[in-house]
């Protein structure tokens, strides 16, 4: 047995690197965090070969004092927090003092910095060992170049994925930074190719357009709301642009991108039935809160946080987003299937969606990094940059498809004040297609309506009203319905018997795992008593309180589907007009209860374009 001894610095740095530096993207993330914390207004990231060959991060921030250069590479050395107290009031992205030494220990690292633009220092480390310390050109800010990452940890190198994957991660990371800090101009290049370039104009929508493309940005709606503890603002993407992955949700807490499943669920809940199953909206939410309310020190990667008052925030977010979409017309337009690309946050695709933006724009947003002397701080944006921003076409000026739709800039509060007019345009029935779709027209173009979905929506709202009318009646069952419950469920039921009885569901223990439903509310759909009862219990279990509306919603959706006209059912013109009239007056007419669209729109322009009557 070897004797116990303290590990030397280089070994412990390598061990720490195992946590912090997982892949090239983590290096990029740590370095960019430093750049952001240094108060930069421009950050340029250049990577070669997915970051394996080299990563360079250049900023115009505060720089490192030359006499502290060596200290920056010792472990747990940081300028970001000073005392215990600070650990619970973290306002910077970094605080652990681990990133630089960890990265240095697994790569060849060069750092050039100038804290005042008058004097510059350069330090070179290989595998964590200082190789040289020289002068560098006095350029405000810091540049870190990381080369040959993992050259001395072959095991880690072996497990890296393809260049493409690594680049995807880097690109994703920078995209999140750009969304978190629209006030900072980011530029990401890979092997000389520009993948992302933001203007640093503080306009979040512009950043979102750069990342997700014009089409998605056009459909986005701004929201903001406030409670005593939280301020939230951001943009919610149109349900039409929903994606199949949660990764299109970005949550930014005090400038830090974090992942949060509870909040993702809140966003989804806010969209109600506008989203089909398994689809997630594109959404960027900025949360401002007192640093005391969140604990970042959960994991070295700092992607997860613990949040006090999470429920409150969830509720706020859900209601705010619901407010956005409750008054909106959400009609998929036929243009999309043709031009729709799936911009993802990963590298190559992000660039392709960016190219969809008007070409003049990326030029307009370009800026030059190599005249840093004019720049002093984050707040002092140069006149030149301001000029170019002003001359850009404002994303908000994109012509709206529907006059009725609120402009993206409008706050949710304003939207809610709008009078409740029908959001469905007036339609004239042309006929029926395959006994399944109603064809209709108006001045705006051509519409197809899924008759089953429309009927389902009508039924759904009808049943929902029916079910939510406060009839407090319950039906005793001559033959009780038996259900078997697991031990934990049974304990839960025993505990909550009164709550359930309060809702009209009377359960009794029948021995062993078996419980019997003695009475159930009259609104329980016939033949679905057991399912609805189970749903009720699930609801109570999940949310700790019984929000019957939700249970009723599910029950109503089941009933609505059963009662609706099926596809392949031929209708008279009069019936179709009646159906459309009734459907137009629904509260949320654009999707069926399962989130599928009810109506599709071809504008006159799109049709003329297809017939080549217009050529652009």
């Amino acid at each position, binding site marked *: 047995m070897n004797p116990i001894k303290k590990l030397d610095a280089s070994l412990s740095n390598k061990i720490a690197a195992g946590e912090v530096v997982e892949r090239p993207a983590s290096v990029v993330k740590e370095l960019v965090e430093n750049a952001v914390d240094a108060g930069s207004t421009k950050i340029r990231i250049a990577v070669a070969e997915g970051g394996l060959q080299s990563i360079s991060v250049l900023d115009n921030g505060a720089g490192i004092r030359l006499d502290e250069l060596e200290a920056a590479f010792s472990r747990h050395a940081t300028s970001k927090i000073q005392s215990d107290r600070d650990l619970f009031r973290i306002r910077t992205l970094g605080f652990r003092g681990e990133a630089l030494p960890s990265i240095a220990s697994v790569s060849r690292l060069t750092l050039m910095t100038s804290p005042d633009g008058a004097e510059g220092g350069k330090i070179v480390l290989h595998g964590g060992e200082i190789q040289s310390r020289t002068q560098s050109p006095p350029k405000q800010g810091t540049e870190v170049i990381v080369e040959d990452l993992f050259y001395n940890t072959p095991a880690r190198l072996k497990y890296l994925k393809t260049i493409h994957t690594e680049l995807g991660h880097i690109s994703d990371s920078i995209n999140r930074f750009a969304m978190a800090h629209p006030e900072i101009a980011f530029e990401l290049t890979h092997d000389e190719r520009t993948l992302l370039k933001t203007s640093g104009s503080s306009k979040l929508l512009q950043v979102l357009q750069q990342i997700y493309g014009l089409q998605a940005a056009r459909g986005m709606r701004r929201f903001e709301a406030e409670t005593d503890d939280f301020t939230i603002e951001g943009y919610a993407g149109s349900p039409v642009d929903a994606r199949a992955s949660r990764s299109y949700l970005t949550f930014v807490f005090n400038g830090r991108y974090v992942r949060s499943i509870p909040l993702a669920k809140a966003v989804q809940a806010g969209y109600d039935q506008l989203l089909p199953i398994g689809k997630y909206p594109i959404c960027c939410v900025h949360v401002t809160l007192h640093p005391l309310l969140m604990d970042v020190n959960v994991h070295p990667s700092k992607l997860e946080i613990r949040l006090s008052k999470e429920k409150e925030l969830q509720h706020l977010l859900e209601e705010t987003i619901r407010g956005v979409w409750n008054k909106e017309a959400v009609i998929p337009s036929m243009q999309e299937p043709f031009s729709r690309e799936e911009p993802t946050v990963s590298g190559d695709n992000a660039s392709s969606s960016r190219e969809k933006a008007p070409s003049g724009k990326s030029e307009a947003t370009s800026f030059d990094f190599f005249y840093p002397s004019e720049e002093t701080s984050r707040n002092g944006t140069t006149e030149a940059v301001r000029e170019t921003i002003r001359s850009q076409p404002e994303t908000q000026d994109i012509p709206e498809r529907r006059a009725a739709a609120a402009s993206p800039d409008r706050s949710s509060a304003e939207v809610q004040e709008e009078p409740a007019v029908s959001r469905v345009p007036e339609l004239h029935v042309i006929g029926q297609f395959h006994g399944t779709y109603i064809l209709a027209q108006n001045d705006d173009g051509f519409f197809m309506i899924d008759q089953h979905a429309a009927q389902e929506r009508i039924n759904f709202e009808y049943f929902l*009203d029916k079910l939510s009318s406060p*009839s407090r*009646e319950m*039906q*005793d*069952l*001559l*033959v009780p319905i038996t259900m078997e419950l697991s031990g934990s469920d049974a304990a839960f039921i025993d505990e909550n018997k009164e709550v359930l009885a309060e809702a*009209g569901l009377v359960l009794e223990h029948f021995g062993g795992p078996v419980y019997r439903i003695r009475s159930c509310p009259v609104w329980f759909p016939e*033949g679905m008593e057991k399912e609805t009862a189970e749903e009720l219990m699930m609801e109570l279990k999940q949310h700790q309180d019984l929000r019957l509306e939700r249970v009723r919603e599910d029950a109503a959706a089941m009933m609505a589907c059963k009662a609706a006209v099926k596809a392949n059912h031929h209708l008279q013109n009069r019936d179709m007009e009646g159906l459309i009239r009734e459907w137009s007056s629904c509260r949320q007419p654009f999707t069926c209860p399962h989130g599928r669209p009810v109506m599709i729109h071809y504008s006159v322009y799109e049709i003329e374009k297809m017939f080549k009557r217009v050529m652009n």
Partner: protein
Amino acid sequence: MKFTIQRDVFVQNIQHVSKAISSRATLPILTGIKIVAFDDGITLTGSDSDISIEAFIPAEDGDNSNVDIERPGAVVLQAKYFADIIKKLPESTVELTLNDQMVTKIRSGSSEFNLNGQDPDDFPRLPEVEEGSQFTLKTDLLKALIKQTAFAVSTAETRPILTGIHWGMESEKLMCTATDSHRLAMREAGVEESGDVEFTNVVIPGKSLTELSKILDDSEETVDVTVTDNQVLFKATNLLFLSRLLDGNYPATKNMIPSQSKTNIQVPAKQLMAAIERALLLSDGKNNVVNLKSLNENELEITSVTPEVGKVTESVSCDAFEGEELRISFNGKNIIDALRVIESQDVAIQFTGAMSPFIMRPADRDYMLHLFSPVRTY
């Protein structure tokens, strides 16, 4: 196989047998009708997983000649084509000829069809009904039993056992019970020729009995019933009707029926039914909750409220009233269903308070009983 048959007789029997044929059969051959020609007549067979029906068309029926059989044989023909063809043929007789390739030539007057058939040996044999409990019922009684109970079965497949009608026989009395757990219908019948048969927990699918009741010929005097562990066979002169029984234990219904009552009333069935029907007009086919209140010794008030529509108030005079004052709510549609099958002029209703099930039966008979669970406010 070759025979000539009277078309009307053929059509009627095909229709009977078709009741057992499902277009969604799991076994493709079960979408067909099996036709077998014997020297003395023809049998038609249809079967699905629940019921099997075999109809026999005798060559000679009294003075009438139904079928003229030249050559016996057998074939299975697709029911959906065959039934429609026979129905639409021009003449009053049809000639069927089967060739070696299982192609059946159907000829009537100027019309000729050649229908591809399937091998009759592939058609599953009807389950043998071994010795079971056997008894005989009068046809009209059987039909009444079915009519007076089948309406109360559950339509929800979630508890399959409740989609059936429970038959139990004890000391020469057949007791039929059906419930969907909101209401229960019971009908008792004396069976003279029961031959000491006793059984319990025989649950026949409600749908099977409804079909049986449709095809039973009123001219038939009696039907022989054989009950086995998993099948029930109804046998009339020229008809075999076989149904699967439902698996599982039927709930014990006897102890559901309250033995005492607090309020007894007697009302004319027609007036009660009309009043409830009107009260339901506002409920829009949903909920169907009707409230009943005793005003005085000879008057009841029936009300129904649908908040978004309005309110209705009805008053019904009762022939007899004894016991406590009453205020109760129930599903009006269930009461109407029961009133429809009660043939008597007056009905007697026994309540045991607003929280307990109540009983309704014909005032002049005690072989029938309907039980209803009230609706309560929580």
